[in-house]
């Protein structure tokens, strides 16, 4: 059964248009002039209980606006939002007690106080029963390693620690549904992995439904079964992660950094697209060429400092999907 349903949802912002000069400033004050911006255009999708769904798109695609519609911060200009059988905006207080929200860019921790104080306050705000609270703290200590810094001031935490504490804060009251807006933004690979692992654990063990936004493709590949792609406020793709991978094309680049000045010879099945003394870039098709074969071939031939496989960025994926759809029309 779908616990979250978005039907033909639209969101139009009205922005006050600045008018110049003193008379303009006065006009702004009394007769402001507006400009409409369509942030979300007729988006529909549904999410079943227990799903873990990725929500991606380039910057300014309307991800955050959609999250705000789903969390009851904003009302849709038209269309319907129904989550957990409630209208997020109309039944706000009743509704938000059952969900958890993480805004990756904004902390909800009390800056000058230990993390544990914020948790304690949240316990009181949500009315979390003592045994639930204790059980959750143990779990977070366990998987997120929160015990190490629970008693430190929030402003002394590293970005990764802060994000872990923020995610824990959003889960203290056992929400049925959790929204995570950019939970891995700005983190290094180790910190990202820790957070991805935790999200998977909560989803698998507790059956918590999750919707997370990101512009990191790997977040999606590692954690979600299903992805929704939006761009310029419109829905572009809704389906499996593997489906998205095939849509996004199979060409990848291998970037090789050498220890000594090297001239590369061509390798069959690849194309040398860029070369200077210490770096070369090969383009290859992931469908016809095994990555590890190519890597071992290169490693045998040359003195190598470092190798990286370049995954397509969200922007290029969106571009590919977009042109594929245009071609179909």
């Amino acid at each position, binding site marked *: 059964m779908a616990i979250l349903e978005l039907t033909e949802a639209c969101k139009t912002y009205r922005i006050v248009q600045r008018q110049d*000069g003193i008379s303009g400033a006065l006009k702004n004050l009394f007769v402001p002039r507006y400009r409409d911006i369509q942030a979300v255009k007729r988006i529909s999708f549904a999410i079943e209980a227990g799903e873990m769904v990725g929500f991606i798109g380039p910057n300014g695609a309307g991800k955050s606006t959609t999250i705000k519609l789903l969390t009851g911060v904003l009302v849709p200009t038209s269309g319907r939002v129904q989550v957990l059988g409630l209208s997020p905006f109309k039944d706000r207080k009743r509704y938000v007690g059952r969900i958890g929200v993480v805004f990756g860019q904004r902390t909800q921790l009390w800056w000058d106080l230990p993390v544990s104080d914020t948790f304690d306050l949240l316990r009181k705000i949500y009315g979390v029963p003592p045994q639930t609270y204790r059980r959750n703290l143990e779990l977070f200590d366990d998987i997120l390693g929160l015990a190490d810094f629970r008693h430190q001031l929030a402003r002394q935490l590293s970005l990764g620690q802060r994000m872990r504490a923020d995610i824990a804060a959003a889960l203290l009251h056992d929400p049925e549904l959790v929204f995570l807006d950019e939970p891995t933004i700005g983190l290094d690979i180790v910190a990202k992995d820790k957070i991805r692992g935790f999200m998977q654990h909560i989803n698998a063990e507790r059956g918590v439904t999750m919707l997370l936004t990101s512009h990191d493709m790997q977040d999606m590949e590692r954690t979600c079964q299903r992805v929704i792609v939006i761009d310029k406020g419109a829905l572009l793709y809704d389906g499996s992660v593997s489906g998205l991978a095939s849509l996004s094309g199979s060409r990848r680049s291998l970037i090789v950094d050498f220890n000594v000045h090297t001239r590369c010879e061509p390798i069959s099945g690849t194309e040398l697209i860029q070369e200077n003394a210490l770096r070369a870039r090969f383009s290859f098709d992931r469908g016809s060429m095994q990555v590890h074969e190519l890597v071992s071939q290169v490693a045998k031939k040359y003195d190598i400092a470092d190798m990286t496989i370049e995954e397509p960025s969200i922007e290029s994926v969106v571009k590919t999907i977009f042109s594929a759809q245009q071609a179909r029309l």
Partner: protein
Amino acid sequence: MKGAYIEIARKTLLEGLAFRVNTLIGILDTVILIAVNVAIWKAVYASTGTLQTVSLEDTITNTLFAIGISQAFWMDEYSIAHKIRTGAITNDILRPMHFGGMILAADIGRAGYRLLVEFLPAFVICALLFGLSAPASALALPLFVLSMAMSFLVLHSIGLIMSYISFWYFNIFSFVTIKNAAVLVLSGAYIPYWFMPDWMMAFVRASPFQAIYSAPMSIWLGHVNGSSVLYGLAKQALWIVALQLCAQALWVLGRRKLAVNGG
């Protein structure tokens, strides 16, 4: 070289102009502030049977100038303190300019903007509404302007000292706030020096506060003549030198601390 300082002053002035609604508020603020204080003086003068040594007109003139200009002579201690605290100051130190000179240029730009755009219109409005004593003599006018410019430098130097405290103490709010309160009471703007009690006047005479608004106002109103005018101006200049030396010492010590701790 000189061009760069002028450029800083010009930029601060233009930044001010960019906020025109705030300019209107600034004018309104000054007019209301002066109107309230004039109303107070009129009411207290009306209550007394005996004649005061200084006329109501002179007291109102003091209110118009000193309170009006005090709104314009407002130093921005916090932004320098912020730079010191965050270490952004190293960028400024690296520039081929004298740091104190850069601050002075910015302070002049801000004060210049406020004098021209906020004080002047407010002053004209208030002078038409409440009247004004003429300067004591033709010579008093330029000497008044010179003395007022030195008042600015006194306030600027005190502000500099306040900002440099942040080399040692991370939040200068308390210091700046208490300094501003002292200026409010002692500078001669809200209580003209002729209404200060003797014990207070004795303290003010020996402090830089007299060099703020009391000095220029006594010239305009003709309370000092001849050589005492020069004496007053010289005293102001001495205070500026003393305060600048103090600021410079703090700067040198502070920079050394920055170099040791690595900004």
